[in-house]
């Protein structure tokens, strides 16, 4: 079972007060800490687990700047066997559709049975690249996958639906699955582990080697562009609900109602 897993390097923004940069279209990256996209981490772990159980090879692939090497090395340390990194400044400004095109071009030269990606990326949150890639490659797919069971020539999966429901499907290989967080418990990747793969080869590609022309990627090759970004309006601290017990309870009911709880 040969598996390709697509990963992305994203900033960790959970605690950060993000700033809009001077273009107005992206955030200031200075001082931000980057790492592998959380969903992709589950995908890599799942790929490695499948390999450990069924044999085969795991190839990690990423599209991004030279710094993306850190996440690809991390994937190698976690257990991926090979790594491909597509780096080309001309791909900057690509939307999900254009990125999927780059990935599709890169994947054409790699044999695979299944492709795993994260459901979405922490940064743009599009949940679009994986499924688009499947379409470009002409293979079936399933999103929000919470369980994978490898069978002969097909894969039995569970995918998460709303309201605590799941559905079970069988999909013939080759196929692509976007992995939901919580599908497994990703193992820890130690510094020693990363040091051990420091010398491992990472294959690098650019648009030229992939046979893509500049107008197929970047803003020109994209369907959407981010025109501007802006922080959502925020309030500070708790709004204290005061009054008699009954009044307070009534106010809480309003909150419940607004939150769609009752």
């Amino acid at each position, binding site marked *: 079972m040969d598996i390709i897993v697509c990963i992305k390097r994203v900033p960790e923004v959970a605690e950060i007060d993000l700033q809009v940069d001077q273009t107005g279209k992206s955030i200031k990256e200075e001082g931000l800490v980057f790492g592998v996209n959380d969903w992709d981490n589950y995908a890599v772990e799942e790929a490695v687990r499948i390999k450990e159980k069924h044999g085969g090879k795991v190839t990690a692939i990423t599209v991004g700047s030279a710094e993306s090497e850190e996440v690809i090395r991390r994937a190698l340390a976690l257990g991926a066997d090979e790594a491909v990194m597509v780096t080309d400044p001309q791909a900057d400004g690509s939307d999900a559709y254009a990125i999927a095109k780059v990935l599709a071009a890169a994947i054409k030269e790699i044999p695979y049975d299944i492709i795993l990606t994260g459901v979405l990326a922490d940064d743009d949150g599009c949940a679009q690249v994986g499924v688009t890639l499947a379409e470009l490659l002409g293979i079936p797919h399933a999103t929000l996958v919470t369980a994978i069971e490898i069978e002969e020539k097909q894969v039995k999966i569970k995918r998460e639906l709303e309201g605590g429901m799941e559905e079970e499907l069988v999909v013939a290989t080759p196929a692509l699955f976007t992995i939901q967080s919580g599908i497994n418990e990703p193992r820890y990747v130690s510094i020693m582990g990363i040091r051990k793969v420091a010398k491992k080869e990472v294959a690098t590609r650019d648009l030229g080697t992939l046979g893509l022309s500049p107008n197929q990627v970047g803003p020109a090759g994209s*369907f959407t562009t981010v025109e501007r*970004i802006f922080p959502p309006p925020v309030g500070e601290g708790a709004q204290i609900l005061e009054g008699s017990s009954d009044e307070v309870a009534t106010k809480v009911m309003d909150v419940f109602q607004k939150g769609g709880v009752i």
Partner: protein
Amino acid sequence: MAEILVLTEHRQGEMQEISLEMLAKGQQLAEQTKKELTAVLLGKGVASMADEVKRYCHHILVMEDDLLANFNSEPYQDVLSFLIKERKPSLVLMGHTAFGMDLAPPLATAAGIPLATDCYEIEVKGDAVIPYRQMYGGKMCAEVHFKEAPCHMITVRAGSFPAEGLKEINGAVEQVSFQFDKDYAYKKFLQYVEAAVGDVDITQADVLVAVGRGIGDSENLPMVEELAKLLGGVVACSRPVADKHWLPKERQVGTSGKTVKPKLYIAFGISGAFQHLAGMKNAATIIAVNKDPKAPIFSVAHYGIVDDLMKVVPSLVAKVRERKGA
């Protein structure tokens, strides 16, 4: 005249809330762009739903087939591709749901339609439809521009548009005539699985009623459980409560327990030890109840009640019951 196409979503014979939300927004957009609103309803045995949906749109395109019985993006994609080719809508709306996430990207890709996903707002500026979406886990909003094209597609975030304002249009039901040319054996639906009852996973719950040391005694837990049940949620706790074995470890929220992100988090008698806050601060709505007005929990909560939880819980239970008419 071009139209706005809304793909309605349903599961196991029930219309999903998102469908009505989209229809509501669709009506508004149709008005603004002077277009007609067309709903698409695919499935098996959906006639009664069609009757409901047609009230809110100009046209409803219905197709029934065994292959459409349960959502499978492959046959759906083929039907929708056909419809888009036929009807040339200017805008297609779908939910950013398990359903839409599976379907929209390949459909858009195959049809060459620009797609914007997970949008919480759609504006019309002149001829342009401008979707807004969130990035960086909600820390930034983005105004997205589409490449010019005859048709655009948008998936809509659930809960973004109120369904209340739906207007009655009472459109006509039209049957779609489309012939499947394959059996889609490469992707088969097997069954729906419901999360096992009693198997409490606080990370999956939408509503968490969390208790801390302020609960005083395990004897006071039942009233909190009652409230959780009324709200369709489960009870979670802070470390001291788990340490006391009043609740199992699996219910503990915090760095040494679980990290949760429910829609609603009510913290009773939790002062807000730092390690606890780290586990729950990303909840969508946080209500904190604590005697101490300086309790750190109030710094992350959206709403606070400075009072004894022993007083607050019963009054809330009573009030919820009253609202529910029970």
